[in-house]
């Protein structure tokens, strides 16, 4: 009889996937969280076989890394493949090769989309909103908007990732390309860049001849920070050196 996971198991796996980075370490990376998320699968397949149950979890404690949200694509596919392994259709080695092949795309996609675009864009919107609105009720509304703007795509990726990859199995690799998320990417990129531009325009000390020092320090700090960031200087330097340079400038010109 082919063993398949139930809807309750899927919910349980999804809930556990929210802890996927709980035991992050250099040896296994997210493997501890990944294996923890697959426990309902192990219970379903090897309920009466402690040796196979433990072997299943131990197997999934091997090195694995992915973006925490995009790891759902791996979870769904692995759940599907484990059902096939239990049915004798797929070997453990095939599953391991597939899992290792997912590491690169899942990491790159998630880092590019969420860490590089969505998160900065959403919080740039938040900073602009806080700048424009002083009332705490308006700011709480902005926070709620922020929460939704960020977590709607976040939860969509987690839920859709799991269900789609469970359905597609091996074929899930076809959809793991940034082009398949281009509308999401463009929408948030546009939002973020627009908010940064508006914020810069609102804070620029104009006219320069009326506020010469403020304008000079504003430009110097922007250029210095951007230059250090492009050079991939450590965040601490990119953050503090422009401020120190700007203040030094003020001390020198103020003394003169």
């Amino acid at each position, binding site marked *: 009889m082919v063993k398949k996971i139930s809807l309750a198991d899927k919910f349980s796996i999804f809930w556990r996937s*929210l*802890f996927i*980075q*709980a*035991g992050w*370490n*250099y*040896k296994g990376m997210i493997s*501890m969280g990944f294996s*923890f998320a697959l426990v309902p699968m192990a219970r379903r397949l090897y309920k009466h076989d*402690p*040796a196979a149950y*433990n*072997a299943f*979890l131990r197997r999934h*404690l091997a090195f694995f*890394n992915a973006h925490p949200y995009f790891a759902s694509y791996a979870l769904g596919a692995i759940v599907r493949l484990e059902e096939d392994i239990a049915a004798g259709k797929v070997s453990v080695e095939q599953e391991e090769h597939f899992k290792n092949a997912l590491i690169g795309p899942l990491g790159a996609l998630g*880092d590019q989309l969420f*860490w*590089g675009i969505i998160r*900065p864009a959403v*919080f*740039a919107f*938040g*900073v602009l909103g*806080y*700048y424009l609105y*002083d009332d*705490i009720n308006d*700011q709480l509304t902005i926070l709620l908007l*922020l*929460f939704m703007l*960020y977590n709607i795509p976040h939860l969509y990726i987690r839920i859709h990732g799991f269900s789609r990859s469970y359905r597609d199995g091996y074929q899930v690799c076809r959809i793991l390309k940034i082009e398949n998320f281009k509308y999401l990417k463009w929408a948030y990129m546009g939002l973020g*860049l627009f908010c940064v*531009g508006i*914020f810069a*325009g609102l*804070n620029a*000390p*104009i*006219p320069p001849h009326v506020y010469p020092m*403020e304008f000079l*320090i*504003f*430009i*110097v*700090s*922007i250029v210095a*920070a*951007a*230059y250090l*960031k*492009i050079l991939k200087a450590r*965040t*601490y330097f990119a*953050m503090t050196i*422009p*401020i120190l340079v*700007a*203040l030094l400038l003020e001390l020198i010109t103020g003394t003169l």
Partner: protein
Amino acid sequence: MADSIFYSLLFGLICLDQRYVFQFNISQPLFTSTLIGLLSGHVQEAVYFGALVQLLWLSNLPVGASVIPDGNIASVIGTVLYIKYSAIYAEHGYFLLLISIFLVVLFSYVGGQLDIFARYRNEHIMNHALQALKRKDKKVRLGVYIIPSLLGHFLLNALLILTGIESASWLLDILYQKVPAILNIHWRFVEIALIGTGIGMILGIYHDKKKYALIGAAAVLILIIRMIH
């Protein structure tokens, strides 16, 4: 001290969201500073400081296995200190802002190093789990290994927040007596420097002509509107 303990326990828990559980990003400075403001009754100061710190940390990208500065915990420490001393340091307002930001940077570094320690600790826990999973007679519960890992993260977060607030308070108490108020005027451009730095760091991660064009177009539009009005 009681306040510091309260903040350390509450935000020690909330900051687990940063990397280890859920990751809904409620541990970001905008959220935590607003909460600190609501709890302390100093909403304006907390929100002002939190927004500035958020601007600085926008370009902080936790890519792969890289160790990034722990800006979220550091911003909790900085916000608590800023609202605590904003009344006491009334004559040193600009200096307080500058020192608070530098303390945020310092504690973000410490937090990053503690994260490395936590990762090695988790490796140790995982090795125990691997050993236990060699058993063939009894099912091993992985939750027994996840919980200590999370507890460890929580304790590290809480400890960092508590020691950060207390040690920085001690430092600020000394500085208040040593730094003459007359020097405060020299730090009056710290806010504009911080805003410029934050914008510059974002430009640094989006170094692309099309993206710069969009930012520039939005900025010019607003400048024109400001000039007309």
